[in-house]
């Protein structure tokens, strides 16, 4: 078999290999990568730095991919020499590998502008996963970070560091940020949006020296001024890695010179990616590099294809909340075109289209990039705009969801990063039966780059795939526009321990009645109580541990485990009702007693007099376990439902859940305590228990699904605990078990809970135990309130004389 060697395990090289594997031609492939990681999405490193993604999330091809395709992967192994005559490559570990065809994809390195002191401890570049990890380690609240370079990478790095708590200053040589992508107006808006995020911006500053004594202490500028800094990140551009090619005798200018089919000056040796120079141009954006890979893959597998012809470049800034998109020739003077413009400084929105002879040749979008696919398509297709000029800036409102998709031609590019057209996606849907976004990613790689075409892909699936179901990753709230799953990851990876931190860093700083309680819950379930609980972020019920009524008074429901009480408790309840003039004592549907109409100021005294724990009837938490009398008294009972229910309640009480959790335990299938319409139900049978989940008897009625049938009470309780914790960790806030089970499917729930590996089950039980150990009866706060004025009525200091 022909031996194909790839030097470089980055996006361009592996992107090319992915294409090679699609062709019939078989190679014996070896990949050398000097980083020690499998192939990852370098574009997404800024999202890792900002905590929106973990390192695992950005892996593009895991080890199993290399294995599946029989590719030999040599990680941490750097090629130091190419013998183009004998057709061998030698690595720094002394090994020598022969090749028939060689692809050089060595990428680029950060460009370090000439200045003194770049060797000091605390100077970083931002290029690799290791750089990102090192930055994450050194950054944190109070750390002063200076980013040299106000381009795409510099700004994304700055935002990431600021999210980590650093005080960040961006130092830029030019008078405009992102001057290669934006005009002065766009750059000005971008600057104010970046500053609004809390990042300082200094323009027209040229660094001359990085100061410090061993460690970085600051930067001095050529104009004599300077700033303090503990960290300096240099993001001033990239330079192609060409030394290896140069010493091998290949033709090299700024990059490795290739022809239209990516062949270097030596036959059989090819180059692809950022290290390449094609017709005098080096490319740094992902889309043209993947195009190069496609051309090369076709060429070396003996397939005739058109040569590399770069598409119009397009750039998108990936900072949450700061939208910038730029493409083509946006400078009207150099384009010789006219400008169609919309500008709203208060909204921070700027749209500029440069039109020449009724064709779009370039555009800039700041503040609102929703229309970027439409403009990009106009730009790349060279469509005549005469008939739609009136609707250039404000398109006619779409009549249906599928319109944007329907309006696109099959040749239109949906995913600019991976170069996937609408036609290719439709083909995958129709011929390969793709019907989810994940399958589409696997089949076409669409939306695996920057992710900005995800909505469009979803729209295509919705329109064309008969079995498409909307993935329910809805954002939590406009205040903090992320799906709850993402928020959980952010809270975990960024070690955020208060609601206000999450809102300040990822949201609008204010929050609202919807997101604040949800974030409170997310923090609670992740840190199991080991966090800064912010009562102001919680509903009044959770501040005073009682349920607010329409007149502003509260209801008090003490816990009666399993619905079992005693004459002594009943006497105390009666005394409390008398003493505090409780307006109504009500038997609830949950086998408990509700004392209605208690004044807030009386709550601590009521709790003390009751001498019973909180029934949590006011919160999204464990409510109760309803039981029948079971074997204890009932002549039909076959299981001890009362004792089992009391035990279940005792083991889960005081815990918070995404929504309220009501449970039931019955001693025989007659189901007197209605276990089949509870969130968790245990149904006693002769010699076994059936554990059911996801039942409801509220706004909707839903019969619970059987989770499992087990022989012993211990096993029944364990199954209930495992499901309970799984629900706590995976459900969205305010999602009842019956919605949750329907959304993810009972088969999936079974797979992830009772059929999961022992380690997974133990993990769920351990985390439940940890939460339980840190939980407590909220009514104990009656004697020791979180805040001294929580229950008292504040009296004005100035006594008013009547």
């Amino acid at each position, binding site marked *: 078999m022909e031996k194909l060697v790839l030097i470089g395990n980055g996006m361009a090289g592996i992107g090319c290999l992915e294409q090679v594997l699609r062709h019939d031609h078989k190679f014996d492939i070896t990949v050398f990568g000097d980083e020690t990681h499998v192939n990852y999405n370098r574009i997404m490193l800024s999202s890792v730095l900002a905590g929106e993604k973990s390192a695992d999330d950005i892996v593009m091809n895991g080890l199993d991919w290399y294995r599946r395709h029989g590719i030999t992967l040599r990680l941490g192994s750097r090629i130091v020499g190419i013998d183009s005559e004998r057709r061998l490559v030698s690595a720094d570990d002394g090994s020598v590998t022969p090749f028939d065809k060689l692809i050089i994809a060595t990428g680029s390195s950060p460009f370090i502008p000439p200045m003194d002191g770049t060797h000091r401890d605390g100077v970083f570049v931002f290029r690799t996963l290791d750089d990102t990890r090192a930055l994450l380690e050194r950054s944190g609240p109070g750390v002063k970070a200076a980013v040299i370079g106000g381009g795409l990478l510099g700004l994304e790095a700055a935002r990431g560091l600021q999210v980590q708590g650093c005080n960040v200053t961006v130092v830029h040589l030019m008078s405009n940020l992102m001057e290669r992508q934006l005009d002065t107006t766009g750059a000005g808006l971008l600057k104010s949006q970046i500053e609004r995020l809390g990042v300082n911006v200094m323009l027209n500053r040229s660094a001359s020296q990085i100061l410090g004594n061993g460690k970085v202490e600051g930067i001095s500028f050529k104009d004599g001024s300077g700033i303090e800094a503990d960290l300096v990140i240099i993001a001033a551009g990239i330079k192609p890695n060409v030394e290896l090619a140069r010493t091998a005798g290949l033709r090299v200018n700024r990059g490795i010179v290739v022809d239209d089919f990516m062949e270097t000056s030596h036959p059989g040796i090819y180059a692809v990616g950022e290290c390449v120079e094609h017709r005098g141009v080096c490319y740094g954006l992902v889309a043209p590099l993947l195009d190069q890979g496609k051309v090369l893959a076709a060429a070396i597998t003996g397939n005739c294809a058109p040569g590399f012809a770069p598409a119009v470049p397009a750039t998108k800034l990936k900072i949450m909340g700061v939208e910038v998109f730029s493409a083509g020739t946006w400078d009207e003077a150099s384009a010789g075109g006219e400008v169609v413009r919309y500008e709203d400084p208060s909204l921070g929105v700027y749209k500029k289209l440069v039109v020449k002879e009724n064709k779009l040749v370039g555009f800039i979008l700041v503040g609102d990039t929703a229309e970027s696919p439409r403009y990009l398509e106009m730009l790349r297709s060279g469509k005549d705009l005469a008939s739609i000029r009136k609707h250039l800036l404000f398109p006619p409102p779409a009549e249906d969801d599928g319109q944007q998709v329907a309006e696109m031609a099959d040749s239109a590019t949906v995913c600019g990063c991976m170069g996937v057209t609408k036609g290719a996606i439709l083909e995958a849907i129709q011929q390969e039966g793709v019907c989810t976004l994940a399958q589409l990613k696997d089949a076409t790689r669409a939306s695996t780059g920057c992710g900005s075409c995800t909505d469009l892909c979803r729209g295509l699936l919705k329109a064309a795939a008969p079995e498409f179901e909307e993935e329910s990753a809805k954002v939590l709230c406009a205040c903090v526009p992320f799906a709850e799953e993402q928020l959980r990851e952010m809270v975990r990876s960024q070690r955020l321990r208060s609601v206000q931190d999450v809102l300040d860093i990822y949201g609008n700083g204010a929050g609202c*009645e919807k997101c604040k309680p949800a974030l409170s819950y997310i923090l609670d379930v992740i840190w199991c109580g080991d966090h800064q609980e912010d009562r102001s*972020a919680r509903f*009044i019920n959770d501040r005073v541990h009682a349920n607010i009524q329409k007149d502003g008074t509260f209801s008090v429901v003490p816990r009666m485990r399993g619905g079992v009480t005693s004459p002594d408790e009943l006497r105390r309840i009666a005394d409390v009702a008398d003493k505090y003039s409780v307006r109504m004592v009500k038997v609830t549907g949950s086998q408990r007693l509700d004392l209605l109409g208690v004044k807030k100021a009386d709550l601590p005294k009521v709790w003390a007099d009751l001498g019973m724990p909180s029934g949590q009837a006011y919160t999204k938490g464990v409510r109760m376990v309803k039981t029948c009398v079971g074997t204890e008294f009932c002549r039909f009972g076959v299981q001890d439902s009362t004792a089992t229910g009391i035990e279940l309640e005792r083991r889960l009480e005081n815990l918070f859940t995404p929504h309220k959790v009501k449970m039931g335990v019955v001693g025989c299938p007659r189901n007197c305590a209605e276990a089949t319409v509870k969130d968790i139900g245990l149904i006693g049978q002769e010699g076994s228990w059936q554990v059911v989940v996801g039942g409801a008897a509220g706004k909707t009625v839903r019969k619970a699904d059987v989770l499992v049938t087990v022989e012993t009470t211990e096993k029944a309780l364990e199954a209930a605990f495992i499901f309970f914790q799984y629900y706590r960790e995976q459900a969205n806030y305010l999602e009842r078990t019956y919605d949750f089970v329907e959304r993810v499917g009972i088969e999936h729930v079974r797979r992830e809970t009772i059929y999961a590996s022992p380690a997974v089950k133990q993990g769920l039980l351990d985390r439940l135990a940890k939460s339980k150990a840190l939980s407590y009866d909220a009514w104990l706060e009656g004697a020791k309130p979180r805040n*001294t004025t929580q229950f008292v009525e*504040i009296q004005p200091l100035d006594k008013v004389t009547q």
Partner: protein
Amino acid sequence: MSRKSRWIRITEGENIPVREGRAIEVEGRGLAVFNLGDRFLAVENRCPHRGGPLSDGIVAGSVVVCPLHAWKVCLEDGQVTKPADQTACVASYRTRVEGGVISIQFPAQERAVNPAAAELLPLPAGMEEQGLKLEPAAG
């Protein structure tokens, strides 16, 4: 009834946790006083919808969300901001902090008053007590 305003000292600022409100009765009027972290704001403690206690609401920026049915009331001017089509409002009161003590100006702000112009009319220090003596509450 006289419109002359006076300042009434309410309570120490630390008695109201950040982003929370507390109910305080002043001269028979129920007030809700909020700590927004950088300032204190006071409004009538009665949602225009069904009379809910605004002091028990969640604070969202400079808006409070009524705990009963989630109407939103702006703490700066007392205007209902949600539902959007509601024109109802509650009285709002000017506040100031001196020596860590929150004071509230009675009577409530005129809604039409230009806040910039109102800034020109604070009472000199020491006048509050006099004001109180001169202006007993009606009734």
